[in-house]
């Protein structure tokens, strides 16, 4: 058995690839949690009375956050599949 094959076997046996995947999953879950809580706080701010300029700014941030959440969920789905 070649060295490369041996290392692949060790990686597979020890589940090192899975470990990397699960660490990524954990990271994306952490980020999604933070982004969702940020979204909630922007929602709350938008519901309160704010100036036109601030409202525009918050709406833009909300659009970005929603996009990031969607992106994060897609990554998580891919990692789970």
């Amino acid at each position, binding site marked *: 058995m070649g*060295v*490369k094959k*041996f*290392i692949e076997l060790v990686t597979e046996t020890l589940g090192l690839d899975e470990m990397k995947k699960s*660490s*990524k999953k*954990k*990271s*994306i879950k*952490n*980020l999604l949690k*933070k*982004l969702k*809580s*940020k979204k909630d706080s922007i929602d709350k701010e938008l519901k309160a009375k704010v100036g036109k300029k601030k409202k525009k700014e918050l*709406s*833009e*941030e909300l*659009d*970005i*956050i929603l*996009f*990031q959440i969607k*992106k*994060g969920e897609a*990554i998580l789905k891919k990692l789970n599949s």
Partner: protein
Amino acid sequence: MLRKILLPSIFVVLAYGFWISPDFKGIAAGVSIFLFGMLTLEEGFKVFSGGILEKVLEKSTNTLYKSIGFGFITTAIMQSSGLVSVLAVSFIGAGLIGLAQGIGIIFGANIGTTTGAWLMAGFGLKIKISAYAMPLLVFGVLLIFQKAKSLKGIGYILTGIGFLFLGIHYMKEGFESLTTTIDLATYAVDGIKGLFIFVGIGIVATILMQSSHATIVLVLTALSVGQITYENAIALTIGANIGTTVTAVIASLGSNIDGKRLSSAHFIFNMVTAAVAIALISPIIDSVNFISEFIGIANDNYTLKLAVFDSLFKVMGVVMFIPFVDKLVQFLENRLKGKDKQEVESYESAQYLNDSVLEIPATAMAAIVRETKHLYVNAFEIIAHGLNIKRTNILSAMELEDVIKDSYSKNIVDIDEFYEHRIKGIYGEIIDFATQAQSQMSPEDIEELYALKIASKDIVDAVKDTKHLQKNLLKYKNNSNKHIQDQYNGIRIGLAELLRSIDAISKMSEEDEIILLLSKIKVHMQRYDILANGTLDKLIRNDLITNEMATSLMNDSSYAYEISKHFIAMAEVIFIDDSGDIKNLDGDMFISDEDVDSIIKKGE
């Protein structure tokens, strides 16, 4: 000259020794194998000294006591104060720790070396250690041949331990055989005269072997078979402690200012401790006897008693020095001044890049990150002034519309001069240093290093683009044509917002905030695409600006876009926490140009 004579002389003495005594040959071979084992062990630990150590270091050296603990534990594990000293110099050089913490690490390492004496006296001399050496060597060598960095590292560590065991075995065997032919103990010298003679021998032996650890192991082995007396062994141990600083000072002659300061601290510490130990030798020996009796060491177990002495002597030194660390730091910083303090150069140079950090890939990487941040700080100022905006206003909470009204200077800032003095040299040093550091790095590290080199280039390119932008920006910012004036001031506001946001990112720790702000400035960057968003078309169609103005605006919007692109790309590399979730996702959460388009479309 001395070196030219010294080495052949040592060879002649050794050759003569081998010729007259096969036992001496065994002992010398044992010492050589032991030293080779230490080198191999250091090689192995260097593989792991990167990321893990850096992370531990951040949390464990913020106080003097924690630094001492760090030095003690790492030396006890790696059994090499030499490697720990190299690490400490590298960490200071990379700006990861200060001199006081470095001194703390050295203090801890000094106590850490005593574990070697305990292991040797407690186990090494009592069991047949060579039986463990063989399998360790076989497994170790097999692992060294593996491609994976960590397996290779483990291989070096196992082989190192194997050689240490084998070395001890040969030393022990050599001394045991020697006992049958010659009794070195007859050469023992009593009293104060003996103390000084054997301290001297300890110094010379340590300088020759470049390791106090090896000297102490040799002393313990000789003591275990009665070839030296307990009193002389104590003197040899004190000598070894002085000898080790001589090697450290010699090694630091070629190092940078941090290395010189640290080795000077090491020298002062060990010399004073040794002087106090010599002056108070009788009460110290009494204390050793008392402690030994208290912990149940037999009165005639001299090897363990020597380990007690070694520990007591070193702990005493550390306790004695702790109250004076700040004064020692002050003294060394005043006495040994670096280039940065000695000469104020008009050409700014790198602050964190020096040879001492090259040894360890993680510290080299940390130094490059810090230097790139230094380059960014300079570029930030140049870009702000190039736009004729005050840096302090950008960093304040002032409305951006007001920020651009408060001009930095009535005259045009010479970006070329700024570039020559504060960018070019540092950038060149980063690239040169990165090339040198690369040779010690793994493929993954090299990939990270490449990203850092690109980040530096992004900074340089952003400055160059500002230079191109500056000419028309200053020409049109107060132009009588209101439309072109608005466009150029819009560019200034946009870039001021970019600089403010990047500065905020550099200080942020919340990752959701970082992602949001990075995405936001990426979205805002699209405002410079005046062809696609119809701005230029509208201005020309309605005859609001001249053709010349239109061409300038098109080119300059493109420069503003490039500046933003370069700065955002740089921020994604240097301001993202290495141990954070964003980094772990390899940039998957950063938005692409297509993502920006989708966000803009949704917002419309």
